[in-house]
């Protein structure tokens, strides 16, 4: 290479280097030392939470000017877990995050989160923690009584019905079916006389099939929790389990539901578009249905069969360890308490349809006024009374999504034998869990 060109090249490189050095000097952090900044990851499974949380964070900033919170919207629950895992591997976890309550076991096993009891020693804090409904604490409390998650957006499964179809079919539009036989009669009547294409949607998507299956197992008289408290054992091969799955498959076979996948994400839209007379889904969708429904609709607890009940669901606030200083931890606890006061729990419930997490929230004036104007909200609160814990195991993704969901789908969509599929799932899951002993 000729020397002049080389000279020019080197001069340019030198200039760029000098420029970079100057720039680096300029961007040196200038932060007051008593300030603390934390990251807070929050998912939004239903489409209304994100805006709510943004608003709360603004209020928090006004009330606590020394704590800088960087709120990070992190997609749905599973995407949030991925984001947090990546952050942990990078050595910098968010100080606080809303995580699905069923992630607790895996996170504790990996020592990724801290128990709340270490930070809530005074009486006031204990009162705050004890105020939450016990059914919402079950998935977050281990067998030794340590609390790993504080309820934030909590839900259960409820049934929604289209009152127009009920009226046309000659059914009582004000009351949803209360028993299994009423449920089937209503489904057929709305299809035959009401003009609905389908009678009942129970979503069969990979991400939520286990959750709806839990309700069916509980109703069949089995153990709807499916897993034990430590997440080391599952029960999937009892006659009640088989009966529950056979009933679910019969909906598709008899044309009450599609025999192909009933997608979780679009099932609410299908209900709103009048594709089905009834829908089982999370109480967290009530806000969306309230906003968008062009017809009268009703909501109530799921109908009982041998027994009644449905699992709880939703997110809890968790304290992460990796790269979080004591000061940041303190700030995270302050933020968590701010987000879960009865007034805010009531506000979340009013605006999204998630269930008020304590009696204090349920009796909050805003909540009381909302229930008066909108009596459907009582349904979710009532449904949560009989709620059972959500299925949760170690290695949850492999157990629930990778093994149980395909087993259920093979029966629901591919016509496999329920007993065989469940027996195989039981064996496969036992093998996965055996590696965690």
């Amino acid at each position, binding site marked *: *290479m000729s*020397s002049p060109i*080389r*000279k020019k*090249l*080197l*001069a340019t490189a*030198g200039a760029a280097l000098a420029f970079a050095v100057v720039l680096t000097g300029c961007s040196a952090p200038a932060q007051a030392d008593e300030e603390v900044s934390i990251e807070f990851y929050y998912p939004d499974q239903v489409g209304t939470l994100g805006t709510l949380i943004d608003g709360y964070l603004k209020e928090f900033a006004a009330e606590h000017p020394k704590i800088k919170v960087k709120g990070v919207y992190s997609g749905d629950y*599973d995407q949030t*877990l*991925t984001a947090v*895992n*990546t952050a942990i*591997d990078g050595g910098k976890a968010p100080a606080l995050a809303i995580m699905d309550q069923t992630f607790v076991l*895996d996170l504790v096993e*990996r020592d990724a989160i801290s128990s709340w009891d270490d930070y809530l020693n005074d009486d006031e804090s204990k009162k705050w923690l004890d105020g939450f409904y016990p059914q919402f604490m079950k998935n977050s409390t281990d067998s030794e009584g340590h609390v790993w998650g504080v309820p934030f957006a909590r839900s259960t499964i409820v049934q929604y019905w289209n009152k127009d179809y009920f009226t046309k079919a000659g059914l009582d539009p004000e009351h949803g079916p209360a028993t299994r036989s009423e449920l089937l009669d209503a489904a057929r009547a709305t299809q035959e006389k009401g003009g609905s294409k389908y009678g009942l949607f129970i979503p*069969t*998507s*990979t*991400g939520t099939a286990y959750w709806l299956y839990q309700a069916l197992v509980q109703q069949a008289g089995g153990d709807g929790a499916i897993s034990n408290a430590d997440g080391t054992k599952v029960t999937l091969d009892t006659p009640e389990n088989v009966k529950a799955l056979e009933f679910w498959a019969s909906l598709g076979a008899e044309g009450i539901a*599609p025999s*192909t*996948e*009933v*997608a979780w994400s*679009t099932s609410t839209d*299908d209900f709103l*578009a009048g*594709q089905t007379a009834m829908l089982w889904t999370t109480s967290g969708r009530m806000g969306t249905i309230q906003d968008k429904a062009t017809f009268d609709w009703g909501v109530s607890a799921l109908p009982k069969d041998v027994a009644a009940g449905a699992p709880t669901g939703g997110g809890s606030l968790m304290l992460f360890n990796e790269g979080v200083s004591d000061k940041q931890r303190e700030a995270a606890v302050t933020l968590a308490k701010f987000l879960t006061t009865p007034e805010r729990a009531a506000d979340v419930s009013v605006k999204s349809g998630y269930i008020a997490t304590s009696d204090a929230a349920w009796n909050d004036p805003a909540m009381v006024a909302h229930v008066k104007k909108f009596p459907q909200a009582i349904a979710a609160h009532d449904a949560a009374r009989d709620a059972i814990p959500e299925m949760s195991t170690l*290695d949850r*993704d*492999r157990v629930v*999504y*990778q093994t149980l*969901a*395909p087993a259920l*789908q*093979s029966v629901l*969509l*591919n016509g496999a034998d329920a007993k065989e599929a469940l027996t195989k799932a039981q064996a*496969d899951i036992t093998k996965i869990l055996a*590696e965690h002993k």
Partner: protein
Amino acid sequence: MTDAPAVAPPTERSSWNPLRAARKLPDAGFAYFLLLPAFIFLALFTVKPLIGSIIASTQPRRGDGFTLDNYARLATDDVFLKALGNNFLFSLITVPVSLGLAMLLAVLLHQNVRGRGFLRAGVFAPAILPMVAVAVIWMYFYQPNIGVINSILGALGLPTPDWLGDPGLVLPSLMVMMVWKEAGFFMLFYLAGLQGIDPELEEASRLEGTGKFRHFWKVSFPLLMPTTLFAAIVALSDSIKMVDFVFVMTQGGPDNASNLLLFYIYKVAFAQHWPQFAAAISLVVVAVLVALALIQIRLMDRKIHYR
């Protein structure tokens, strides 16, 4: 600062100055000096992760030590085997169909047809779209109740299947989308290839009275072989690495019917937080890809006429 020297002190003159030193390097040395940044990035972002993956793949999920369990597990992991089978079918069908269609379109659009530029742009359009956008568009096509395809089928009184919700249909549905996306892209290479063929050959065929198909089969097709080899390797790697649509459209379901290798690797590494096993799967996939590329090159080399 009392008696400032008029000239720089001698120590500074003899100190090592990197810019001055670089100026005196021999040409080959200077070339490497310029390539250094590229080498650093290659080492940092390709070589180091590769070595990291190899090491990780021999470690247990918890604790330290050396183990080959991750590789042994592959043979018994049902979901891996299912994803492998799915991906095999996916590649086996989408690669030849995409290439065949691309070649056909290229030959048609190489001729002087009316609106040629417009048609070429139209066929190439899907290739410019990001895969995620393609996935969202096709989700509307396939939506069972209000989707484009089922609306048309319904209006004609034909059955309206749930394209993405039926375990038997989901993979073929995704293949159709992949071919749509890929064919236009490879058509561009074939067009370039066709333009590189000497027009005298076509004239000669015409003078000899050779049919168009015979001319294509005996002249154009063999001369396009270098393009085909290149396109086949790119298409094969695309069919394994372009899995964005699985995230958007199906999440690998229902019943794992649309689970593909890279999606599964992602799930194992991040959702299940098992990077060691994910590394083992990745290395096996890379090894298979390299082997396939070598076979393709060897097999086709014999039939290729490079000019």
